């Protein structure tokens, strides 16, 4: 016989007891390995979702609200043969079917050419002609259409000119297309095509890029390039830069024969700052700024209007006979004019009867965000009158403005600003017929810049003498000075980023291990406890082995190897069971817990390495639990033998325990009193700390009580006292039971209390809704101020409500609905004043003190960093950041935009976004068009009417609206689902704990058979013994649950006090009642079972 044979024989002999121990290992392995598999599977599924949404795309070249030539793709391929480039035109739209019955907003409308076949690896996209479209499967399902059916697609109007630029007509925001569904595209055929990091499938419509160009009145334009290459991003960047031409920046060269000049202008009306700066470096450059003014007037002596009069006339211009309505005014070089001087052409001078030295006024509109019009006026002295054939009297000096430049008559003008048609005289029509937009007045360039420079640019053109202009040099200068980023062009390794986002997304392994925390603890404790009981039944063997000369180490190794065998058997079974457990969890994730994943792409992925890791980890954990049991058992044996030798160390441990007891109780009570009576603001974290410390302290107090009970004078003996004294027979067992129940109750009650009820105070401004009624988003931007009374009348809005309009720069969804790790969430621009004292803040920068974080949103840090606010949940979980951290973006101008998180709101409707001020937003994204996001404030009793009116007025904008409370609930359904899972697994752990209690109970009763038999023999009624037994264990059960309950209530008191929480004593009471009933049934059942008649006989036999 060898030692190992001895161990095997021992294992086999005690197989039943050992298998019971293995149950604990099976559970811990199952939970642990299952959690790891869930993590792997979610990661794998997200990676797969990345491949499904990108196809063969590896890099993305992208611009927002501007367009480049499709040929750029061919040029890039020619520049580097290892790059495949596919141009697409990606726009947003609304899809409607069934005569408006089915409507889907926020649809991606993707113009593709035959190159897209390579990206999608599907021929479905090869022959989309005219009005033929391919749509994603989910869209087909939502619209209830199939191949051959017709649908209406309303597409956001793309414009080469920024939609909010001055004098651009905003009438047409969308274009409609009646299309035939040629194909329904599955995910394998790139039906889930999306450039955003999200597992949620987008709604897609594919059509020919040429058709889409025609619809937008473009020719050969694209806004994205899908790159497929193995090369590094820097090489792709280089190729893109090599192929970037002035045309891609929207620059146009005009040969102005009448003045023998070459003019560089832009399709975007205003030349962007970086471009004009570059152009000014060419020899002979003369920048021009032309503007459309409302009135040119001549001031007669004494005719200066009073300020009051001006105010009255502020919005509508009462043009008098001495004024000229609606004219272009252009700039000339500063050397010709002082800043207060003006030149008129002879037509204008005649019309005004003006002569040099007269005072001339210009009235014009400054066009602010959301087309907010501000009346402005400047005064000049007429320096000179120039003839109509002068070189400046040139209609090409003004930029091309669609709706204005191409109008046949003045009355057909569509300028994007209000025009008083009555003010237009016949002679003005005649001027338009004869001279079109030829400027009637000229001011110095500096004065023009002072009056009309705007966020879209400073100049409308730059002119050069024709003989000195060298196109080659112009192209070279462009290549040298302008980078893709200067045009807001981003070049990203999108596939790599997608995989990174998937791999670093929500860690479901960690989440499930965390949520299974108690079940893990319970199973580990159960393993340790059962093994200890196992050892105790063999305590005589330990003594014998010691007497036979086995070293303590050898004896320990016997038990540890036995434990290893048990762990291994349990581990293997646990790994097998974990496969079923994972399948089970995934089934629930795809149904009951769908809120936390929001995708049906989840697939179970089993990696052998994960199973192995799960097995090894659980082996280590179980072995650790077992070794603790063995060591404690051996130590106890040694202590039994050498009672006196340990008296000193016991004194020390007693001292430490007492110190910890008093310290934890004192600190917890002190914090509690301070928070309740003296703190200005309740701090949930401190309450949780108080609860935790109290739990620790009360458990130590319980242990101390057990010791006291044991050493107490035993002069008086009563049945009840007997039960209490029995508790001290095995103090560690009694304490284990109490710890298990206290911890379990603490976790379950505190988790249950933290469930949020976000409907509770939804109307309060400080709540997560900000006190707003509705949250709305549109597919097409709204370019005007909805609060403007005149605009409301125009649109037919009569209900009384206020709207906060927010601008938006698209980014990834950073809400908890997205499982990927996001680095650049969508940015919102808001007027911070409108959010003053709304919402609440969970965290804020120390420097802010108690000031309202919204108030400082308009400021900037010294280094140009912009303050930003986000939902704390987004900051912590979506971004993995904290308040004070900085987020980096590339703004529209190609510069790095640094956003410093200055505060995190408590759960709010802003989940998923980063909020900055409108002022800072427009500085960085000057050409962004209108508002896409709306917060509606009104009287709750009118909410239905307001909702209906808005839905009907903005229907064609793709208006999607929901009540703010509902939106909040949707977000926090994720949090609440997590808490539910935690609660469910916690309850499972408690049941496991109860089983542990039952095993201890059964074991103890077995050990006490003799004692029970003696009691029966001396005349105790079975009923009395039964009560003694149940009293003992009910005491432990109640003590554990009470300690756990009280401390959990203290820990989550803010949740109980908050009307925002779902915490109610009834919910918690039900949970606690279930725990108690469960424990009670086990205790009573087992005690009754063990006290049946046989006990006496069996016990006496033992005696």
């Amino acid at each position, binding site marked *: 016989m060898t030692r190992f044979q001895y161990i095997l024989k021992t294992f086999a002999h005690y197989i039943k007891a050992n298998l019971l121990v293995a149950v604990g290992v099976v559970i811990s392995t199952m939970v642990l390995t299952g959690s790891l598999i869930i993590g792997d599977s979610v990661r794998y599924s997200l990676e797969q979702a990345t491949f499904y949404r990108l196809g063969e795309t590896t890099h993305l070249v992208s611009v927002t609200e501007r367009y480049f030539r499709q040929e750029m793709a061919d040029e890039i391929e020619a520049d580097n043969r290892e790059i495949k480039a596919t141009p697409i035109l990606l726009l947003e739209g609304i899809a409607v079917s069934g005569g408006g019955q089915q409507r889907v907003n926020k649809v991606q409308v993707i113009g593709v050419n035959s190159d897209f076949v390579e990206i999608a690896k599907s021929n479905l996209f090869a022959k989309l002609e005219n009005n033929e479209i391919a749509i994603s499967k989910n869209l087909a399902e939502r619209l209830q259409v199939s191949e051959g059916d017709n649908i209406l697609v309303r597409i956001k109007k793309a414009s080469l000119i920024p939609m909010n630029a001055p004098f651009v007509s905003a009438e047409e925001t969308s274009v409609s297309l009646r299309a035939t569904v040629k194909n329904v595209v599955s995910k394998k055929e790139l039906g889930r095509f999306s450039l955003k990091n999200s597992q949620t499938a987008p709604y897609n419509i594919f059509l020919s890029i040429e058709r889409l160009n025609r619809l937008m009145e473009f020719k050969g334009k694209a806004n994205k390039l899908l790159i497929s290459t193995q090369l590094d991003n820097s090489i792709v960047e280089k190729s893109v830069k090599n192929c970037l031409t002035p045309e891609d920046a929207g620059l146009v060269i005009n040969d102005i024969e009448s003045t023998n000049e070459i003019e560089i202008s832009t399709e975007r009306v205003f030349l962007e700052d970086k471009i004009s700066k570059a152009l000014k470096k060419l020899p002979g450059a003369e920048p021009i700024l032309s503007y459309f003014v409302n009135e040119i007037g001549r001031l007669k002596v004494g005719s200066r209007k009073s300020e009051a009069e001006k105010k009255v006339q502020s919005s509508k211009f009462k043009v008098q006979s001495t004024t000229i309505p609606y004219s272009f005014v252009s700039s000339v070089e500063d050397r010709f004019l002082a800043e207060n001087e003006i030149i008129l052409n002879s037509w204008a001078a005649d019309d005004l009867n003006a002569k040099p030295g007269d005072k001339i006024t210009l009235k014009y509109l400054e066009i602010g965000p959301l087309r907010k019009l501000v009346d402005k006026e400047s005064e000049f002295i007429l320096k000179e009158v120039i003839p109509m054939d002068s070189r400046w009297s040139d209609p090409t000096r003004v930029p091309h403005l669609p709706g204005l430049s191409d109008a046949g008559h003045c009355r057909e003008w569509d300028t994007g600003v209000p025009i008083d048609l009555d003010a237009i005289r016949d002679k003005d029509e005649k001027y338009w017929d004869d001279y079109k937009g030829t400027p009637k007045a000229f001011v110095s360039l500096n004065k023009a810049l002072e009056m009309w420079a705007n966020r879209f640019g400073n100049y409308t053109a730059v002119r050069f003498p024709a003989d000195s202009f060298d196109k080659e040099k112009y192209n070279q200068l462009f290549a040298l000075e302008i980078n893709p980023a200067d045009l807001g062009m981003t070049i990203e390794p999108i596939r790599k980023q997608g995989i990174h986002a998937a791999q670093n997304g929500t860690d479901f392994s960690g989440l499930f291990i965390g949520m299974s925390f108690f079940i893990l603890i319970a199973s580990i404790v159960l393993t340790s406890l059962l093994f200890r009981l196992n050892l105790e039944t063999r305590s005589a063997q330990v003594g014998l082995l010691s007497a036979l000369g086995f070293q*303590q180490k050898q004896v320990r190794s016997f038990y540890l190897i036995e434990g290893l065998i048990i762990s291994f058997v349990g581990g293997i079974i646990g790994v097998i069971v974990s496969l079923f457990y994972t399948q089970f969890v995934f089934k629930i994730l795809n149904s009951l817990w769908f809120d936390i994943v929001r995708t049906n792409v989840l697939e179970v992925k089993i990696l052998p390495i994960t199973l192995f890791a799960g097995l090894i980890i659980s082996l280590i954990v179980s072995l650790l639990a077992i070794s603790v049991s063995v060591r404690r058992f051996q130590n106890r044996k040694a202590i039994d033998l050498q009672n006196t030798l340990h008296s000193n160390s016991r004194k020390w441990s007693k001292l430490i325990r007492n110190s910890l007891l008093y310290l934890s109780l004192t600190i917890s009570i002190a914090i509690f009193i301070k928070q309740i009576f003296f703190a200005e603001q309740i701090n949930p974290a401190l309450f949780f700390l108080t609860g935790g410390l109290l739990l620790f302290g009360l458990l130590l107090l319980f242990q101390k009580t057990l010791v006291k009970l044991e050493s107490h004078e035993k002069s008086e003996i009563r049945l009840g006292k007997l039960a209490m004294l029995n508790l001290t027979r095995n103090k560690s067992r009694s304490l284990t039971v109490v710890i298990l129940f206290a911890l379990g109750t603490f976790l379950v009650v505190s988790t249950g209390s933290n469930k949020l009820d976000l409907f509770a105070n939804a109307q309060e401004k400080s709540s997560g809704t900000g006190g707003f009624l509705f949250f709305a988003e549109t597919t097409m931007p709204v370019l005007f101020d909805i609060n403007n009374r005149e605009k409301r009348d125009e649109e037919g809005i009569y209900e009384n409500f206020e709207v906060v309009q927010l601008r938006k720069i698209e980014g990834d969804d950073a809400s908890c609905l997205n499982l990927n790790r996001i680095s650049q969430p969508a940015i919102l621009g808001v007027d911070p004043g409108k959010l003053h004292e709304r919402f609440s803040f969970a965290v804020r920068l120390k420097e802010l003190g108690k000031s309202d974080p919204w108030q400082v949103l308009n400021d900037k840090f010294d280094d140009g960093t912009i303050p930003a606010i986000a939902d704390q949940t987004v900051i912590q979980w979506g971004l993995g950041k904290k308040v004070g951290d900085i987020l980096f973006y590339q703004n529209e101008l190609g510069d790095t935009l640094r956003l410093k998180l200055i505060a995190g709101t408590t759960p709010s409707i802003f989940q998923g976004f980063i909020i900055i001020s409108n002022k800072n937003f427009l500085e960085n994204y000057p050409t962004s068009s209108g508002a896409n996001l709306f917060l509606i404030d009104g009287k709750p009793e009118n909410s239905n009417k307001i909702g209906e009116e808005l839905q009907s007025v903005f229907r064609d904008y793709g208006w999607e609206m929901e009540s703010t409370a509902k939106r909040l609930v949707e977000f926090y359904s994720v949090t609440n689902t997590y808490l539910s899972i935690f609660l469910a697994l916690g309850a499972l752990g408690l049941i496991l704990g109860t089983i542990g209690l039952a095993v201890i109970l059964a074991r103890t009763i077995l050990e006490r058979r003799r004692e029970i038999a003696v009691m029966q023999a001396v005349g105790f009624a079975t009923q009395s013994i039964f009560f003694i037994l149940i009293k003992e264990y009910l005491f432990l059960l109640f003590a554990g649950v009470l300690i756990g309950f009280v401390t959990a209530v203290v820990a989550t008191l803010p949740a109980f006090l908050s009307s925002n929480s779902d915490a109610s004593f009834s919910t918690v009471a039900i949970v606690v009642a279930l725990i108690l009933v469960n424990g009670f049934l086990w205790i009573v059942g087992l005690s009754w079972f063990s006290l049946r008649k046989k006990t006496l006989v069996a016990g006496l036999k033992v005696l």
Partner: protein
Amino acid sequence: MLLQLKNISKGYGEFGTHSFRPVLKELNLEIGKGEKIAIIGPSGSGKTTLLNLVGALDLPDSGEVIFDGKNITGYSKRELATFRNQHLGFIFQLHHLMPQLNLWENVLLPLLPQGNSVSKGQKEWAEYLINKVGIWEQRNQKPSEMSGGECQRTAVVRALINRPQLILADEPTGALDEENAAALSELLIQLSDDENITLVTVTHSSELAEQMDKKLILRNGKLV
């Protein structure tokens, strides 16, 4: 001289407090090689405590235990375990056989602390002893399949397997009927004589005590 106990004191509870209970007081004892000694005394007089000290299962509060000229009270736990294995054999009132092992394996168990296998010589010795005590037929049986007498004889063989110099027996016949008790007493004496092994037994049995060379009475913590 095989064993010498010098001024041995031992008590239980916390020394210096009212809970402290002295059991052995300044006890002295000398046992020669091959001697057979019975220790008798009333219950609670400290017989088992004395046996535990002699068997290096417990340590005295003061005094020395000298075995074959060596003071074992200073031994480490590891040395004590080796000492027990090499020099001592234990027989208890209850046989304490391993229920998971059969007779043959129970007998060989004390050989395992020395190495992970059993030599041919050791097996022959075990076979000789088992035959000698008359339980060879039961060698493959487990304790649950044997009678009390057979189990106790197995325990005797287990105590002899390492050829100890000293056998310590704590009420070896206490759990046996009269007939089996007499047979076991005879066997112990005979084996002690045959193998020249010193035998110290704690017993209430006057029959067994009478067969010993010396009979010592433990009273008030001292041998008289």
